[in-house]
């Protein structure tokens, strides 16, 4: 892989957002992933969501681990700092960066190998600390860069390209996140950009750890017949449980949703997401019921998507720590250091 800079082409006709930027201002380097890779669609959705939300590009910190998915932060927001951590350790980098500077928007991109195998512990503990960030798992059930081994998210009975059958149960990121107390749990599909963009916007506005598990087929190693993470299989078993609309703080909520089916959830920055149930037996604000619903559909081999659980009242890393509102990047030296040293030392005389 080499870095390829995209040629800067300016289309005067492109619409601008509230900051005067076009969507091109949110792009990054040229992708070097395989043609048709689900990850590229997710990158496009991220670009779209950040543009629509009027996020200042350089006020984002992009982070990832190692793997195909972890390459993607180079392909969006080239005006933002990015960091490629060691394999499976992006959550700790994100936690430390966020601890140091809570003023930025954090986007972490990971994969199923990165989050559910080598980095499973860090993934779990970042959820536990409720680090304020968007955490994307670009989930394809397979190790791409090392050419086709099963990952921990591979379903029982799924067949590898070399015909091997996986018999171990998968680690399921959505159920895992739910059981760990994650405050924003969603699943989507790289092939459903409309749903994905909305979910990303809601996740970026959520205060706390927002996880989106995105089924993202690997065209090179896991898109064949017999794979449960292929485009064909995902489309066949795709089951949106809930429809999500994202409404900016300034916009008015139109009351056209049928009573009982529409559920507005207010986010910390004042924006609102309106959830419209597709299935009446799913309640995205009740953890136990959400869990039961998901488990039922999993047994039926359905891939349930949408914002599956949300809790806006959870306290994030900084509210638990009662940190000052501003960044901690500046050294905190006080004028009275000599007096403090003098006072401290009294104890040791």
């Amino acid at each position: 892989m080499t870095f390829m800079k995209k040629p800067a082409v300016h289309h005067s006709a492109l619409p601008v957002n509230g900051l005067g930027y076009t969507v091109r201002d949110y792009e990054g380097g040229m992708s070097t992933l395989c043609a048709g890779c689900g990850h590229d669609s997710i990158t496009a959705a991220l670009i779209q969501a950040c543009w629509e939300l009027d996020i200042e590009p350089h006020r984002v910190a992009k982070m990832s681990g190692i793997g195909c998915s972890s390459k993607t932060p180079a392909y969006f927001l080239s005006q933002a700092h990015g960091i490629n951590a060691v394999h499976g350790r992006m959550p700790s980098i994100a936690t430390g960066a966020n601890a140091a500077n809570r003023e930025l928007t954090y986007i972490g991109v990971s994969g199923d190998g990165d989050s559910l195998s080598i980095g499973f512990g860090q993934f779990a503990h970042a959820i536990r600390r409720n680090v304020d960030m968007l955490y994307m798992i670009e989930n394809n059930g397979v190790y791409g860069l090392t050419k086709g081994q099963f990952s921990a998210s591979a379903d029982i009975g799924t067949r590898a390209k070399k015909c091997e059958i996986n018999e171990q149960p998968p680690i399921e990121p959505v159920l895992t996140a739910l059981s760990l107390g994650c405050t924003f749990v969603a699943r989507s599909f790289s092939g459903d950009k409309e749903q994905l963009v909305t979910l990303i916007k809601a996740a970026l506005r959520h205060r706390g750890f927002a996880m989106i598990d995105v089924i993202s087929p690997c065209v090179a190693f896991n898109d064949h017949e017999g794979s449960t993470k292929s485009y064909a299989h995902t489309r066949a078993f795709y089951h949106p449980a809930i429809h999500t609309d994202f409404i900016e703080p300034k916009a008015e909520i139109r009351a056209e949703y049928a009573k009982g089916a529409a559920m507005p959830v207010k986010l910390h920055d004042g924006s609102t997401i309106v959830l419209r149930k597709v299935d009446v037996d799913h309640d995205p604000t009740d953890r136990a019921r959400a869990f039961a619903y998901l488990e039922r559909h999993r047994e039926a081999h359905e891939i349930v998507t949408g914002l599956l659980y949300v809790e806006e009242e959870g306290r994030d890393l900084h509210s638990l720590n009662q940190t000052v509102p501003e960044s901690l990047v500046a050294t905190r030296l006080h004028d009275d250091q000599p007096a403090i040293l003098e006072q401290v030392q009294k104890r040791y005389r």
Partner: protein
Amino acid sequence: MSGRVNDFTLKLATANGTGSASANTLLMKAIFRMGVPVMGKNYFPSNIQGLPTWYEIRVTESGDLTRSGVVHFMVAMNAETFAKDHAEVAAGGYLLYDSSWPRGRELNRDDIHIIGVPLAEMVNHHFTDARTRILMKNIAYVGALAALLDLDMQVIEDSLKETFGEKKARLVDANMQAAGLGYTYAKQHYDCPLPIRVKRTNLTDGHIVIDGNTTAALGAMFAGATVGAWYPITPSTSLMDAFKGFCETYRRNDKGEREFTVIQAEDELAAIGMVMGAGWMGARAFTPTSGPGISLMNEFISFGYYTEIPAVIFDVQRVGPSTGMPTRTQQADLTECAYAGHGDTRHICLYPADPGEAFELTIRAFDLAEHFQTPVFVVSDLDIGMNEWMVPELKWDENYRPDRGKVLSAGELEQLPGRFGRYLDPDQDGIPFRTLPGVHPAGAFFTRGSGHSKHGIYTEDAAEYQEVMDRLGRKFDTARRHVPPPQIEYVHPASKGGRKRARPTKCAIVSLGSCDVAVREARKKLLAGGTELDYCRIRAFPFTSELEDFIREHETVFVVEQNRDAQLRGMLLMETDADRDRLVSILHYNGLPIASSHVEEAVLTYLDKGQVA
């Protein structure tokens, strides 16, 4: 043993979890407050309750704050280790035991003085509660020792008042009653004070008694660190505990909000990851750990070296390999720290000799980490970190300004001619400019542990990769001129005006860290016997030219260190042009702090027989 006034070693053998640690600290503090220099060493088990533990107090008017290797007075309170403790007392010395139980046959030495005090019997008679009885037995021996060694009871009472404060004032009374029991019994049954005793002086003025984890924590706060991440591990744990404690008091704003974040990570891999994340973001961040933690952190340390992220890592060394002996001391992570991580990596390491220097070098570590944009190690050990040392009061330089290194501001980025390149070398010192996230779009770049060019762009190109590696090598060479130089002491120093150069001795000592106090006392004694030894104490890696010159001008250089494999000697051979045959190892690695007698004997043996042991 004739009179030993202000010059003896007292050792207390107890079981852990019985409250003896506070009694022993009280004893040490009382001696310190009587103006007599004192050393305290705690040899404790990796256990919560019931295993043998010892506390060694050296009363040393001459200021030799190191283990002498001889015990003059033993307080043998632990039945389990009684025979061993009894045997350890030097001829002519004293043994105090709890005579509530008969120890007729075991007391089979006629070359030491035996002092029986029925501690349990008296305490059980006086106090009713079971736990109180256990705790007060310790205070009772403090009382007996006060009478025998002529300690000031008022000083003891004042210390107790400070410990318990207003709220628990009634505990002061109970403790003083217990102390009184021992004191009165000793007075009535023995000829107090003994010839071995403490005499008030004023040699501790301007000093404090403090451990090196506490001073390192203070250093971190004073250097302006705002993010700490850690995983608890002996013997480093108290460093973060102290940092948190100080920051809770001194680093909260008017609203009580914290100007710092301390995160207890899930493991050391995450702890160093958090430090890297915070360092990348631009905050001063650190993690305290010990050898096993460094082992786990290796992948990220290699990452930090190659991506050039500042970080401060404390290794409070304990005995390895593997879990080893977590509550015993060693210097066996010297190479682990200097070369941590896969690939070609070398790191700046600082080696404090005592808690006072731990404070100073911690502040230096933060400056060096940011100046050189790299992980920096403060290589301490259990002896420095957890034992209480008498050191001169810490001083604060009011002119201190943190060295935040080459960081481009938004304004500088605006005016930058051309594109920002993260790993360029505009100043030809190997140190590039960096930018912080969120400051300016022109500063954006992608930090990656994979091969990158000087512009920070992914590369697999041979020349581009090597260019960055060569510059990292130059950066390390620049650091050579910035790290603290060694401390060199000549027996025949240069004259003040510099007209006469130092005249080197034939033999010399090179050492580092907590060996310092033992080396100093050994040199003094050897000099009194006619053996002259110049001394060079290394304070940092990379090694500086002063050290190379020092080795060159001596025929034989004893390298004193606390590990089996002569790690420092190995590093000297690898990193300098030192002649292999000149470097003679003096090693100590049984988990106890090195004693001055060990160094002294090793030198004498070598000079006599041509080999150390």
